[in-house]
Structures are given as C-alpha cells and as structure tokens.
C-alpha cells in the first residue's frame, strides 16, 4: 500500500512538472507569434451598455494597429477599481490604465502608483473642453484624461408649471424663484408641487462652485494640500439656509435615504414633484420614462439669489496611467486613452449615455449634425458647461477626505431639513470634516 502511494505521488509530481514546462513553453511560443504589447484598462462601468461600448472601442483599437493589444475589465465600483489597482501595483502587476472618479483624484494622486499622462511624450490637449480638463490638471500638468463627465441640471414638470400659471418655458434662475414658483403652484392647488433631488453632497459642491466659493482651503487644494473644509463660509450658509427653507415650508421631497438617485428620480417620474435636480447623464433615461405622462423641460441649475453664475464642477471619471510599466506600455496606454476620447468616439459615447462629449470638436460636429435642434434639452446642459468660468472654484476641490465630507455634509443637511440650526449644524460638520482631514494629512 505504501509503495503504491509512493509511486502515485511520483507520477503526479512528474506530471505536474511536465505540464508546468508545457505551459511555459506554450506561452513563450504564443509571445513569439504575437509580440504585441499588452495594455490593460480597468474601469468602473460594469453595465452592459457602457462596458459593451468600451469593448467595441477596444476591438477597433486592436484592429487599427499591430503594436498593442488592449484588454478591458470592469472592476466593480469606482472605489473597488482604485483599491484593486493599488493592490495590483503592490503585487508588481498593475493595470496600464485605471478609471478614477473625480472625488478620488487626490487619493489616486497620493497613492503614488500613477503618473501624469501629460508627461508621456508630446500631445495636444487643447481640444478638450477647458472646464473639464481643469478638474484633472494638477500642478499645471494634465494628470488624467476626462472620460465620462456630467453636471446637474434642473428638470421641470412643465404641465404642473403651466397649471400654476407660468409660461411653459419659464426656468427659475435662483433658489428664491424656485421656491416662489412652488408656493404659487400650491396656492393654485397644483398636485405634487414639490422640489425633489437626492440628498447628495454633490449638489452642495456644485452650489459652492456656482458661487465661486472654495470647498476646501489653499485654493481648493490646488495650491497646496488642503487643511480646512470651508463649511461655515457665507456660500455654505446660503446653501444651508436654502435647505432650512425647504424643510420649514415642507416643499422638499426625497425618500429619506442618503444619495438615493433612483428613489428621487422615481418621485419626479411619478409626477410627485414640479422641479427635480439630477445629472445631465440621466437626460435620456428620464425623458424616455416620462414620455406620455407629462411634458418635461430642462434648465440650468438654480443658484442663490444675487450671485454671479460661475458654473458647475465637472463630475464623473477620468482615465489615469500607472507609472510602473515599460516605456512602450506607457505610450500605448496614452494612445488608447486618446483614441477612446477622440472626436467621433465622444459623440457616440454622448449619444449612448448622455455624458458630455469632452472635446470641442465633438460639440461642433454635433451642432453641425443638428443634434441640438432635435432635442433642445441637451443644449441647456451644454450651455451650462460651455459658459462655465474656468477658475479654482469650478475646477473642483482636491482633498483626501472628499468622500468623508460628502457623508458629513449630507448629515448636516438632514439635520437642517429636520429643523436644526443652520450655523451650528455647519459648524459641527466643519469640525468633524477638519478632524478627518487632519487625520488623513498626518499620513504624510
């Protein structure tokens, strides 16, 4: 019995050795036959429509040249993708390109596994729309290539608006206008005269930018590492007062859950609100959903009264290049990132998803095609983007704890909605946000 066991063991071991040899030889052969340089792209868009679009572009790129072979993989959420990339880098096998969300920019930058894409050879970035590229320019260098960008706009239930006695093309410009219109509608017993938007700190960030105010100090974290979150500034208090008024007048409708995009969209789609705020990326979806039930209008994001409109911050994601790879891989990675965001690809990306095409040439071409005359709703979104003033406020904040800030801000907003004092809620939020930022900064 023992002998048999011994024999079996030897047989298995030798088999294992042989097969291992076999595979190494095989892969060596494969490499010789196809010595194209491998480029991997990890992203956070796992749904069939968007990952399918990416796969199509990958196939086109691979067919268009024979130096590189690109593969793409969805890695879960934005957080998962970034964490996976950092882990893979530690294990010595990082992906070439990683898709990072805007609030994760500082985390990605600090992780030290990436390099500015602007450092890889010479290429022209003038065609990218300035306010978009602005967000992804750190220390004067183009750090990453914008890919999926969006910003919030006002969605209007025009039927309710008309019922309330307003002209169909009326768009409230300020918070006060919006609240006034709701009050008028309520006086006239218009059903579902509410304002709905997800309780999400993204809007708070946008309203800060619109007022030209910095969310964090040190020029929004772009001059030096941010050390303070400006949650008690005049601009922040104005937003707090707006939430307070919404709560007191009971005209704000949401599901009660933080960051519940779908839930708040459902309120608008179900005819339970007159004004709704959400991303331009949902224009297509929502327009389709409400077709037949009511007429929908779109307008610029309302802002506090008496403020100059600075424009919105570009939310979404960009593509980063990891630094621990060969020169040839770096160039291939850059070429693919540029291919993915070229004029025509950005047009089809925009038509598929509603994300902004991030190139001026794409916008021009769409205009020639008559895309905007067919659906004027898209034009509102574009004007909001194209009239955005490029400054540190609209470039968006950089900071290691922007994600924590979102939760902290949402909690403060909920406190205010429930009747809490604006100043004390914001002061408390600021203290916690500053403490977390100090804790993060202590890592350096």
């Amino acid at each position, binding site marked *: 019995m023992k002998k048999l066991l011994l024999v079996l063991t030897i047989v298995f071991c030798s088999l294992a050795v042989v097969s291992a040899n076999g595979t190494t030889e095989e892969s060596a052969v494969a490499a010789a036959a196809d010595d194209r340089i491998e480029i991997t792209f990890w992203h956070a868009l796992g749904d069939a429509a968007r990952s399918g679009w990416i796969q199509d572009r990958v196939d086109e790129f691979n067919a268009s040249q024979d130096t590189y072979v690109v593969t793409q993989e969805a890695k879960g959420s934005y957080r998962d993708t970034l964490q996976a990339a950092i882990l893979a880098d530690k294990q010595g096998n990082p992906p070439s390109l990683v898709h990072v969300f805007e609030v994760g920019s500082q985390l*990605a930058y600090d992780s030290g596994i990436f390099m500015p894409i602007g450092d890889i050879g010479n290429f022209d970035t003038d065609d990218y729309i300035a306010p978009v590229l602005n967000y992804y320019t750190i220390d004067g260098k183009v750090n990453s290539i914008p890919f999926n960008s969006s910003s919030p706009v006002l969605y209007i239930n025009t039927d309710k608006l008309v019922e309330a006695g307003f002209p169909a093309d009326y768009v409230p410009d300020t918070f006060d206008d919006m609240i006034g219109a709701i009050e008028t509608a309520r006086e006239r017993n218009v059903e579902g005269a509410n304002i709905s938007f997800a309780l999400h700190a993204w809007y708070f960030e946008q309203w800060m930018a619109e007022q030209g105010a910095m969310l964090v100090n040190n020029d929004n974290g772009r001059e030096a590492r941010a050390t303070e979150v400006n949650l008690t500034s005049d601009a922040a208090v104005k937003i707090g007062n707006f939430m307070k008024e919404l709560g007191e007048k009971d005209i704000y409708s949401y599901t*009660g*859950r933080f960051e519940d995009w779908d839930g708040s969209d*459902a309120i608008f789609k*179900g005819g339970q609100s007159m004004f709704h705020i959400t991303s331009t990326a949902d224009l297509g979806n929502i327009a389709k959903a409400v077709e037949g039930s009511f007429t929908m209008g779109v307008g610029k994001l309302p802002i506090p009264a008496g403020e100059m409109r600075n424009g919105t911050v570009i939310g979404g994601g960009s593509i980063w290049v990891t630094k621990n790879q060969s020169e040839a891989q770096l160039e291939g990675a850059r070429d693919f990132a540029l291919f993915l965001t070229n004029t025509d690809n950005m047009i089809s990306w925009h038509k598929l998803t509603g994300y902004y095409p991030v190139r001026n040439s794409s916008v021009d071409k769409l205009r020639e095609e008559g895309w905007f005359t067919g659906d004027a709703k898209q034009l509102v979104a574009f004007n909001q983007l194209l009239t955005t003033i490029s400054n540190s406020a609209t470039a968006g904040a950089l900071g290691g704890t922007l*994600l*924590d800030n979102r939760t902290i801000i949402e909690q403060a907003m909920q*406190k205010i909605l429930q009747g809490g004092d604006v100043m004390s809620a914001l002061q408390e939020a600021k203290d916690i946000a500053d403490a977390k930022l100090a*804790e993060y900064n202590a*890592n350096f």
Partner: protein
Amino acid sequence: MKDDHGVFRSRFTVWLYLSPTILILAVFIFYPAWKSIILGFYRSNLFLGTRTFIGLENFRNLFTGILSPGFIQVMVQTVLFSTLVVLFGLSFSLFLAVQANKNVKGAKVYRMLLIWPFALSPAIAATIYLFMFNPEVGIVNTVFDALFGMRPRWLDSPVLAFFLVVAASVWKNIGYNIVFYLASLQSIPKTPLEAASIDGASRFQSFKMVMFPLLSPTTFFLLFTNLTFSFFDSFAIIDVLTKGGPIGPAPFFDNEGITTTLMYKVYLDGFGGSSNMGFAASEALVMMSIVAIFTFLQFRFLAKRVHYEG
C-alpha cells in the same frame, strides 16, 4: 482523574482530530483577528498603504474629542439594536414554533412557510423591505394611505427607521430560530407534559414550568447565534435599507445615523470615505470586546440555568 480525555487513548489523537478545524480557524479567524488588533495601534490608510505606529491615539480619538460623540452613540444604539433583535427574534419564533407544532391541518405547510425567510440572503430580504416601505411608491404606504390617509416616513424618521431595521433583521432570522425550536419541541417527551396536565396545570403553566425549561438548551444556543447575527450579519440589511441613516434626534442621537451599528461604522470608516484602516481596526477591537463581555456574561449567569436532559 484517570479518564481526562474521554474515549481517546492519548492527547495526541485528540489534537489530530481537532487539527483541521484549528487550522481553518487559525487561517481565517485567529490570524486576521490578530492582524486587526495590531492594526488598531497604527495610523494606516488603505489607499496610501501607509503604516505609522501611533500607540493609543486611535482609541483616544474614539473616546475623547470631536469624533467620540458619534462613536459612543453608535455603541449605545448597537447594544439597543442587538437587545431588541434578540428579544423579539427569540420570543416571536418561540411563539410561532409552538403554534406550528400543534396538530392542525396542514401543519407541515405552515412549518415550511415559516422557515422561508431564512432561505433569503440578508441583502435580498432588505431589498424586499426597501420596495415595500418606499415612502412614495411602496405598497405599505399605499395601503396606509387608503386605510388611514397617512404616509409614514419609514426611512427618514429616526424611530421608524430604527424599528424597521430591527423588524427586517428579526424577520430575516426568524426562520432559523423556528427550525431549532421546532426540532427541539418535537423531541420533548410527552410524559412530563401529561404529568403536568394531570396535576392540573393550565396550558400557560405547563408551557412556563415544563416546556420552557426543556427548551432552555436551544434557547441558550439561539441567544448566542442571534447575538452574533445582530452584531455582524445585520450589515447587509442596514447597508441596503438605510445605509446607516437617518440622523437621530438631538441631543444624543444626532451625531451619526440612527441605524449605524458598530459593524457598519467599522465598514464606513475602514472601507468608506478615505479608508482610515487603523481607526476602523480600533473600533473593531472595541466591538470584539463588547461581544466578548456579552458572551462571558451569558456563560457566567445563564449557563447554570440551562437544563440539559440525561
């Protein structure tokens, strides 16, 4: 004392048979637990890969300073949450099991239906609740509106949200408890119950004096598993249903979401936001201590009162 290790001839055999379990525990429980205890004394960020020894600073931040009110609130509501989940979970399931154990027509079908929720994963159970209790379009509020003309805010009014999460957790776990209670109810010998009824005990008396003591080993076991469930496995329910929110009433419960338990806070601090792993590890350590204290108390004070037959 000649027979210390029962049927086994040598100590070696005992350890040999235990070794697979010990190996698995060591790899998946002891080693990670040890690692996270150590991590609690470091400043460590998941994204940055940093690691600096800072002694007790994480623990100091838990109990003093700006972040402590939130942590203390979460500790209190975790204990409250666990107590309610265990209390309601056990009493409902015992009640239902006793009913399902009766000789009624179709008892088997009832039993099967009662076990049903256990077959769902917590995330699915929570999603079902989320649909039902959506304040604007959910079925519950449609019914409430039709019957009473009101639409309770299930997900953002603090008390309702808290009890909704408790209810979902109890419901999710009730099938598990019923299985065990039913099994032990079926194995209770008829004789003591008959004796009790001959002695003139009412139905409640015979339940209280005879049946309940005979079920005590099961109750003791379930107390333990339910406690663990409420501490650790309620995560998915909270994540899907409320994401830890909403903010509770001032002055004490307004620092964190009212449905944030320790487990959920560990997740939020360690894997949400800027991923402060050291801080999260120190919180996990405090949570581990609380569970250890609960367990110790159980064995110290309750184990004596458990009646094992034979």
